[in-house]
């Protein structure tokens, strides 16, 4: 295969698309605003990448088994609220509450599998439940985030900004767990051909529970990392994360069905989304267009993907 053939090979194009979109966006930013190309600049632009990346990973687990989670934003808001109140006041109670949240997520996975329910309706309903609990715990914006979380999120590492390191760690850990362990292969297989997995003797119910619990766990991490940055919480703090997380997975090369996902891609997708905000600011485009630009990027990437698919035949 010549280099040219390799580059135009649809499979290569597909896997390169997430990184390419990220690189294009980053170079555009550096071109428009050279000062962004610094330790401080990158730190500032990417600081919210960590909670978004974690929420994206959570969504990715759900998409792997062909479901969609419309409640992750509200759930992150809830865990942030718990983090800034219960966890800060009484670590034991806080940890128990967060563990209960993860268990509840697993239970929803079980319910969806058991009754064969459409995940979007169930999770949409649950988003109100999460929001309601969050509002009860934290009726008005406030609370204080535990010092140790703030310390972690405010970590200053020489040369490489912390968000980049954190994103890399998240990406690698999940990549290893989902893509390189033997059970990870089975979990993904459940998205590709559930009947075959069941025939081989695996329990689809257990797989759903594992995937939903994993999503809950990363939702908790997302909420905690978020209050580490904001130092206070609000029940509505992460409402947009539902949209971000879906967009992040898709930008990262994940498919809606069929279990084709990529943890590294999802994290890159989340970084890309985070950057669009800064990019629009540097272009002096009104922040009104921020989510519109994210929608447009999503559509453009999907359009490119449709083009590549057509070439694959």
């Amino acid at each position: 295969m010549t280099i040219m053939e390799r580059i135009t090979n649809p499979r290569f194009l597909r896997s390169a698309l997430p990184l390419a979109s990220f690189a294009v966006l980053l170079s555009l930013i550096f071109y428009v605003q050279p000062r962004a190309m610094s330790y401080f600049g990158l730190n500032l632009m990417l600081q919210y990448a960590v909670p978004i990346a974690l929420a994206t990973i959570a969504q990715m687990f759900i998409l792997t088994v062909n479901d969609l989670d419309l409640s992750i934003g509200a759930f992150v808001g809830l865990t942030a609220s718990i983090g800034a109140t219960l966890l800060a006041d009484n670590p034991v109670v806080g940890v128990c509450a967060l563990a209960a949240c993860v268990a509840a997520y697993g239970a929803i996975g079980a319910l969806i599998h058991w009754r064969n329910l459409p995940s979007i309706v169930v999770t949409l309903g649950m988003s109100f439940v999460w929001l309601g609990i969050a509002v009860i715990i934290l009726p008005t914006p406030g609370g204080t985030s535990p010092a140790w979380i703030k310390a972690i999120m405010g970590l200053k590492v020489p040369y490489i900004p912390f968000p980049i390191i954190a994103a890399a760690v998240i990406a690698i850990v999940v990549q290893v767990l989902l893509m390189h362990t033997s059970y990870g292969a089975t979990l993904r297989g459940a998205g590709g051909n559930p009947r075959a997995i069941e025939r081989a003797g695996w329990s689809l119910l257990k797989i759903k529970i594992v995937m939903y619990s994993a999503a809950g766990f990363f939702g908790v991490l997302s909420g905690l990392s978020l209050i580490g940055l904001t130092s206070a919480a609000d029940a509505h703090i992460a409402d947009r994360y539902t949209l971000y997380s879906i967009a992040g997975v898709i930008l990262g090369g994940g498919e809606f069905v069929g279990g084709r996902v990529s943890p590294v891609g999802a994290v890159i997708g989340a970084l890309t989304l985070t950057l669009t905000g800064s990019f629009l600011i540097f272009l002096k485009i009104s922040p009104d267009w921020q989510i519109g630009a994210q929608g447009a990027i999503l559509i453009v990437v999907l359009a490119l993907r449709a083009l590549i698919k057509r070439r694959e035949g």
Partner: protein
Amino acid sequence: MTALARTLGRQRWIWAYLGMVAVWLATVTFTGGKGGGEIITAALSFAAFTVIVGIGQMFVITTGPGNVDLSIPATISLSGAVAMKLMGGDNAMLLVGIAASLGCGFAVGLFNYMLIRILRIPPIIATLSSSFLILSTAISYGRGLKIKPPSMLADFTTTQVFGFPVLAFFVILFAAIMALILNRTVYGRAVSAVGQNPRAAWLAGVDVERIRFRTYLQSAVLAAVCGFLLAGFSGGASLNMGEEYLLASIAVVVIGGTSVAGGQGNVAGIIGAAIFMFLLVTMLNTFGASAGVRLIMTGLIIVAVITIAGGDKPQR
């Protein structure tokens, strides 16, 4: 026995009305009989908007699994903002406003369908990503706007005759027409066929793609109409006025007895469910429940209804 169960199963929408009556009785009992009428008037006024978008959503959901329109809230906001700005509170511009609002709906519906058809994006993701764009357009266009609606529009949406909102009357009439369309026209029959089995529908001579197109277009146009009226009702467009209609539009469809597995829609149930949803919040309010409890109850009821309804999903 099974015949009875089947008859009851077919009349699933009745539960929405039973719930509606039960919640109203509970509220009125609590207040000692005071305000029962006012509650109904308010419920009719607010439910009217939910019914409009709920019907659009119902047709979409009835075309089969995976079909949901998530762009309804954004379309409501866009249509409201555009119409209010163009009319500028002037009655003479009313027709222009209506045309602009409908234009928004057509544009959104067309765009959604293009994403679904040409880019082969699953409807959920297609309508979600288009809603990003629509919302941004609305925000950018309607920034800092608080233009009062033309007085005629405001009057139309708020006038009551003997405690019965005029708008609710028109919405009920509209619902009756949509029920007729669902049950008695070729289009309605085709929607049901596609929702049960698109392949069989195609092989029975149904133009599946045209049906899908019309259904998504219809949903967007109805959302636009809702946005137009809602802006008139609430004294001007606000950018987050569509927000609550995402859950509401899906919830009334599910509670109203429409099958989420597709193929079986129901219009009457949507009205009952919309009033039920409003009365539920009212009841919790009169009981003194906090905002959090209200949200939790709303969410739990939807999950409970779908869990119960999900069981008798027909096997394919």
